[in-house]
């Protein structure tokens, strides 16, 4: 659509991430997903008369952790506020949130798109409690309410209206999801609702500085849907304007069945939330010690590790990026390279056979049964020429997975996998094969160099797989020349 050259989009994203604490933000109910309805509730969660909140320390630490990772300023003095409104899934008739004093301010998230590397500016990150769930399709006449989710700790991460395309939004949410998982702050599961995204979208003529009327789009429960919804919305808005209409400020929902959005609140009902400081919760005056302890306990971030792997370990951009997709992978890799300096080999193993295995078996890499040290030993065997990569990955690795109690060298020996690299021995096999196939040898000498593979295969058979293919090839080439 040529209209896109005329207009630019301005997008801001609000992401709600459920914090991975055991208990809720203000009460001791469990936060575990998938429980029977209304079994993770207490008088506090249900807003019973006389109940009071008490803040979960872990939630505060996780909020600070993500703020530090996003280069935010951590607000030393911050407090909770009540956001007053009525809805059945909001037990107290107010949500305890943060209004004028978010715990984190500013900051940015780095994204890499086809156009390059960019920092998406954040406005704030604040803590708040989640609401319960209203289910409309169980009972014809009534809405069913489940308060298991009510009170779960959330952080709300708000960007500046700093994104300019659906593609950027896609990358931002991808990166943010990776980061919160990386930090152990949130499991990032959009289908289960532990990570939710709302988009604020507006369009304006290119070069215009005033912002266009913005529309809020909700119910974006996958990264793909974030992109699709924004794409649709930008197109829709441009069409409206091009046809002479004006954009109504409204809230819209995304329909995943046809990738469109539809209005759910026609007129922006200015909801007066009557925010005021939560009197039941004393303020925070975070100490430097408290924040530094969290800083010290932070894991190395993907960016840092990427730089280390690429620049210091000399891995390719691709290899380094692959390793840095998930914290479990870098954890594993970092352990392996404690026992070896063959970074390239380690990277090949982990991005290759190990990754393949964990994907097939749907496990996390930290559950991979082969210990980093063992993998390093396997790599050592290859470096020493005792075994080749092909045999190691197809035979030794499965054996190790089946029985991790034995050292790789021991297993390799038991399984007769140790290859022969001794030229003298291999010469015998080479001689055997050459003697066996005079016609093929003749063809080779005449120019059919491709036959080398056949000879290597035959030597392999003759040696029952134990001949080091590199040595075999070298010797064959020697013997067959001239």
């Amino acid at each position, binding site marked *: 659509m040529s209209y896109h050259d005329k207009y630019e989009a301005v997008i801001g994203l609000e992401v709600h991430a459920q914090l991975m*604490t055991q208990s809720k933000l203000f009460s001791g109910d469990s936060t575990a997903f998938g429980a029977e309805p*209304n079994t993770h*509730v*207490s008088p506090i969660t249900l807003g019973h008369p006389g109940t009071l909140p008490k803040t979960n320390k872990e939630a505060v630490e996780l909020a600070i952790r993500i703020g530090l990772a996003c280069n935010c300023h951590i607000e030393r003095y911050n407090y909770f506020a009540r956001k007053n409104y009525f809805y059945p899934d909001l037990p107290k008739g107010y949500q305890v949130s943060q209004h004028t004093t978010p715990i984190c301010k500013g900051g940015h998230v780095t994204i890499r798109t086809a156009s390059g590397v960019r920092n998406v500016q954040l406005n704030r990150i604040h803590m708040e409690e989640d609401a319960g769930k209203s289910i409309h399709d169980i009972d014809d*006449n009534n*809405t069913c309410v489940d*308060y298991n989710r009510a009170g779960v700790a959330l952080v709300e991460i708000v960007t500046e209206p700093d994104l300019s395309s659906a593609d950027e939004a896609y990358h931002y949410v991808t990166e943010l999801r990776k980061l919160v998982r990386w930090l152990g702050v949130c499991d990032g599961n959009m289908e289960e609702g532990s990570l939710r995204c709302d988009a604020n979208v507006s369009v304006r003529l290119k070069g215009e500085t005033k912002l266009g009327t913005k529309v809020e789009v909700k119910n974006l429960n996958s990264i793909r849907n974030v992109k699709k919804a924004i794409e649709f919305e930008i197109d829709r808005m441009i069409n409206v304007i091009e046809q002479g209409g004006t954009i109504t400020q409204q809230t819209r929902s995304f329909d995943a069945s046809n990738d469109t959005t539809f209005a759910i609140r026609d007129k922006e009902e200015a909801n007066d939330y009557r925010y005021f400081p939560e009197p039941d919760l004393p303020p925070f005056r975070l100490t430097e010690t408290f924040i530094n302890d969290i800083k010290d306990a932070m894991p190395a971030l993907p960016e840092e590790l990427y730089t280390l792997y690429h620049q210091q370990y000399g891995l390719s951009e691709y290899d380094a990026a692959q390793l840095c997709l998930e914290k479990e992978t870098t954890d594993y890799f970092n352990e392996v390279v404690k026992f070896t300096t063959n970074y390239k080999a380690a990277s090949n193993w982990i991005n290759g056979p190990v990754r393949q295995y964990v994907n097939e078996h749907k496990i996390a890499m930290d559950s991979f049964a082969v210990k980093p040290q063992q993998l390093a030993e396997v790599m050592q065997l290859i470096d020493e020429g005792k075994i080749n990569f092909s045999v190691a990955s197809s035979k030794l690795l499965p054996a190790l997975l089946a029985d991790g109690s034995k050292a790789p060298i021991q297993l390799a020996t038991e399984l007769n996998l140790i290859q022969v690299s001794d030229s003298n021995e291999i010469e015998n096999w080479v001689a055997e094969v050459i003697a066996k196939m005079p016609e093929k040898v003749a063809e080779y000498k005449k120019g059919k160099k491709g036959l080398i593979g056949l000879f290597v295969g035959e030597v392999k058979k003759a040696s029952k797989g134990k001949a080091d293919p590199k040595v075999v090839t070298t010797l064959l080439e020697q013997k067959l020349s001239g």
Partner: protein
Amino acid sequence: MKVTDELIDNLAHLSRLHFSESEKTALKGDFERILNFVEQLSEIDTTGVEPLLHMGDAINVLREDEVKGSVTRQEALLNAPLHDDVFFKVPKVIKNPSA
């Protein structure tokens, strides 16, 4: 300050309260008197005074992340005006999905 019908209506809606016409009339009168009474505060010079946001000196009151204190579903539903032993129920709304 003048208390209008519109103000009363807005406040009633925000508070999810309903008043009959006669109640509204009485309320308007009361409100005007009360507001005149509390408006006296504007006579005090509060330049440069920080508002008191929290009572008491406590700061950084936190609890350990432990699972405890939940009640059974039966207890939770004990006082529910309408339930099916699993969910709390609220009459379904045709007009407005959000209040």
